[in-house]
């Protein structure tokens, strides 16, 4: 798809949605043909031409975001698309989370369920939201045309104003909303020629809609919700995954001032207090005896030992081009490497929490909700209600990195079971402490990659044999493919792009007993690491420069080459560095966005120190350049912290690293200078929330390899 002026009909839109999502698009956005625009009750309410945009009598625009704003800038991105086509001044635009309603707000990338993830928002909304804005504008123009008795074709707009130049008449949008609300919404609408974009792709004009509330402490997160009569719940969770409550004694807990109730729930014992501190003190005073007979008793050492054993056994075949084993047998040079990756926590700044108000006729949720449709269904299940009886207020979330998209709705369901246990006597805010949050698991799982390669006499790779060992993230969830091959565990490795004639990839999906989940960039977090480190090992064996070596293997991958070359050029690849410094490179595609990163690294006191990272990104059409930059900077920081420090340690089933004193993350002093360069493109836009993360670990590892001559095969990286 290229960006040119186009007329999008409803049918086209459905087709686009299907093509992008590859799944079932349940419905189309509420901007269907012949549907009269709905005025809100009370006559003077806003003009609501479709599910995404509302305009009030003052000309203020409310955009309803179908996606969770967890820092990635989606409120700003989606509103940019609407504001540009609607033609309004950016200062008039406000964004709120849309209600849970998959029919209106389903994600075409998720088969129509409402949810956020997979860096899918801009990719699946670009046409949809432009159309939503353009349609609203068209109806406002039709209203003006009718009022003035002139053909709509003679009208133009300036931000927030319909203009009839011939008669020198002007009408602000706000003055047209009542008339517009009575008109039909057109079936087709002409979208802007990209050369006329006011906001899309521009460096100025758009400031993140959440920048000010988040700089003044006024942005509302779940943690900040306070309802009349609300109780705060803190839950005593089992010390081991899979343990259950055998018995508990709440006498002392109930004696703590401010503690109101103590109730057993399926996942532990909840202490309800008038405020957090009372509930937390109550929990500290609680005695619980746990049944650990069915619990996981293994730790990280035992899990990795099992992975090593499996790495020697044939797995489920994923790819077979030619005959890799035979080619390795005939190769001039062979290399074998085993890479280990640890469990990682999401460790979002806002520990998990959820507010539930159970009422007789329904339930209301306040949550930084990432999977509205499945959370709605799961809560309805707890209460024996229909999903539509559960309303969800999606608030800002203090990070997530995938954690709030739990396919089992774990923490949301827990909050609902507390509300159920007290029979809805009060609204409940469940607050997890940092230790609760990390201790609950749902980690990026540990993985092991065993790779063998062969090089011919000319230094060309002729074979790539690759075994991946690690759990299937989607096991036990509705997302698990019928063939049992969970792509989220091997994406980016089984389909690696390097031109090697003989490739074999297989996998094992061991069950660890430790809950696992997607983590910013999912499988790419470890597949890019392994593939990109092994490429450097091959390059070294072939006696070639890492960038040159990649170029030779990516001839049919123009966009990968594009970012590789751009990053190498901007980083001054090949130019001298101060003594003790080296560069490393990695390039990876995830979620259809291409990113290359070059890291400049030295050793300080024997430990890696990253000074500078040059990033090149190709995400097709850039909607908000500064949001793209911010996501690359943030994705790099997130991946760098994990690469240098991240590891969850589990000892005899017990999570040891539950707070920031034991789970180290990147801090200010360790942040390198990051430069981001965007490839100018007319390709369809793709997401940027995750793709900045995968290349940084291997880029740093490769720099250390260049510096020391020794490959690094284990994260966190240590020389």
């Amino acid at each position, binding site marked *: 798809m290229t960006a040119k002026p186009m007329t999008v009909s409803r049918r086209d839109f459905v087709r686009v949605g299907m093509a992008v999502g590859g799944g079932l698009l349940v419905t189309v956005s509420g901007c269907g043909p012949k549907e009269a625009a709905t005025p809100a009750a009370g006559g003077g309410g806003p003009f609501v031409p479709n599910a995404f945009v509302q305009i009030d009598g003052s000309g203020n625009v409310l955009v309803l975001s179908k996606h969770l704003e*967890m*820092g*990635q*800038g989606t409120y700003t991105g989606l509103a940019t698309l609407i504001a540009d086509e609607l033609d309004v001044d950016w200062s008039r635009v406000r964004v709120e989370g849309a209600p849970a309603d998959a029919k209106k707000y389903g994600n075409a990338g998720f088969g129509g369920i409402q949810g956020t993830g997979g860096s899918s928002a801009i990719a699946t909304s670009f046409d949809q939201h432009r159309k939503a804005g353009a349609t609203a504008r068209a109806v406002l123009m039709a209203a003006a045309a009718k009022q003035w008795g002139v053909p709509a074709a003679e009208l133009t707009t300036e931000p927030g104003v319909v203009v009839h130049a011939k008669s020198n008449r002007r009408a602000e949008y706000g003055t047209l909303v009542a008339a517009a609300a009575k008109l039909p919404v057109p079936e087709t609408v002409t979208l802007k020629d990209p050369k006329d974009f006011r906001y899309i792709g521009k460096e100025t004009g758009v*400031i*993140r809609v*959440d*920048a*000010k*509330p*988040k*700089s*003044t*402490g006024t*942005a*509302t*997160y779940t*943690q*900040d919700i*306070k309802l009349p009569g609300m109780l*705060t719940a803190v839950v005593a969770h089992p010390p081991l995954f899979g343990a259950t409550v055998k018995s508990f004694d709440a006498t002392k807990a109930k004696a703590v*001032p*401010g503690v109101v109730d103590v109730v057993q729930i399926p996942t532990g014992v909840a202490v309800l207090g008038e*405020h*957090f*501190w009372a509930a937390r*003190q109550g929990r500290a005073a609680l005695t619980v005896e746990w049944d650990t007979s069915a619990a996981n008793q293994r730790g990280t050492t035992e899990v990795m030992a099992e992975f090593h054993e499996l790495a020697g056994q044939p797995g489920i075949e994923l790819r077979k081009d030619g005959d890799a084993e035979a080619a390795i047998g005939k190769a001039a040079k062979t290399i074998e490497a085993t890479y280990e990756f640890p469990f990682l926590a999401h*460790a*979002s*700044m*806002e*520990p998990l929490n959820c507010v539930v108000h159970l009422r007789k006729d329904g339930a209301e949720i306040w949550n930084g909700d990432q999977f509205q449709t499945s959370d709605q269904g799961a809560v309805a299940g707890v209460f024996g209600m229909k999903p539509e009886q559960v309303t969800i207020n999606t608030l*800002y*979330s*203090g*990070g*997530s*990195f995938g954690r709030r998209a739990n396919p089992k709705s774990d923490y949301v369901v827990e909050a609902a079971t507390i509300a159920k246990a007290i029979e809805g006597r009060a609204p409940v805010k469940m*607050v997890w402490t*940092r230790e609760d949050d990390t201790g609950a698991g749902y980690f990026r799982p540990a993985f092991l990659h065993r790779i063998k390669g062969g090089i011919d006499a000319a230094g060309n790779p002729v074979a790539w044999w690759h075994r991946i060992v690690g759990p299937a993230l989607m096991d036990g969830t509705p997302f698990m493919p019928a063939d049992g091959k969970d792509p989220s565990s091997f994406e980016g490795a089984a389909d690696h792009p390097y031109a090697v004639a003989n490739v074999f990839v297989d996998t094992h999906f061991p069950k660890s007993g430790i809950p696992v989940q997607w983590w910013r960039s999912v499988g790419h977090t470890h597949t890019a690491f392994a593939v990109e480190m092994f490429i450097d090992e091959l390059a070294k064996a072939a006696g070639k420069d890492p960038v040159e070596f990649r170029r030779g293997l990516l001839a049919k991958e123009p966009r990968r080459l594009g970012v590789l070359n751009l990053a190498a050029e901007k980083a001054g690849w090949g130019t001298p560095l101060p003594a003790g410094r080296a560069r490393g490179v990695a390039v990876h595609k995830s979620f259809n966005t291409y990113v290359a990163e070059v890291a400049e690294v030295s050793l300080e006191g024997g430990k890696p120190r990253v000074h500078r990272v040059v990033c090149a990104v190709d995400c097709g059409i850039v909607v908000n350049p*500064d949001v793209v930059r*911010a996501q690359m*900077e*943030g*994705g*790099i*920081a*997130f991946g760098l*912290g994990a690469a240098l420090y991240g590891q969850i340690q589990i000892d005899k089933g017990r999570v040891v690293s539950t*707070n*920031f*004193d034991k789970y180290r*993350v*990147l*801090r*200010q*002093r360790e*942040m390198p*200078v*990051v430069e981001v360069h965007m490839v100018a493109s007319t390709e369809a836009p793709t997401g940027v929330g995750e793709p900045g993360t995968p290349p940084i670990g291997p880029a740093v590892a490769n720099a250390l390899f260049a510096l020391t001559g020794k490959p690094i095969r284990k994260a966190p990286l240590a020389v």
Partner: protein
Amino acid sequence: MATITVNGQAKEIAADPTTPLLWVIRDVLGMTGTKYGCGIAQCGACTVHLDGVPVRSCSIPLSAVGAKKVTTIEGLSADGSHPVQQAWVELQVPQCGYCQSGQIMSAVALLESKPQPTDADIDQAMNGNICRCGTYQRVRAAIHRAAEAKQA
């Protein structure tokens, strides 16, 4: 009953004296700009000022506040007009935003003591404020921007 001064106003607090200042601010006073992140003074999300000094309010019991003046993010300005807040908006520092009240409070305290901080000063003063979104580079830039604005 303790009396503490928050953002220039005397507040009577009926709470257990061991209650951390963070929860007094959030749950008793209902001021939610100050955030809970770790509870053990490791992340800085709960940073407020005590007599102008940045402290982790999650680890200071109510009984230890005494006559010291507490300043929270709400006390910086009513409308986001503090130079540090303005720099934060101009450079679009926040992503998820949850840590930013704490970042801003640490930055304000830094600039009070060092009006023209170097990168090294910033790294040192801000190292106790974790941002999982990785806004550190912009934090650095925004502190420099605010320093310039204050000098101008």
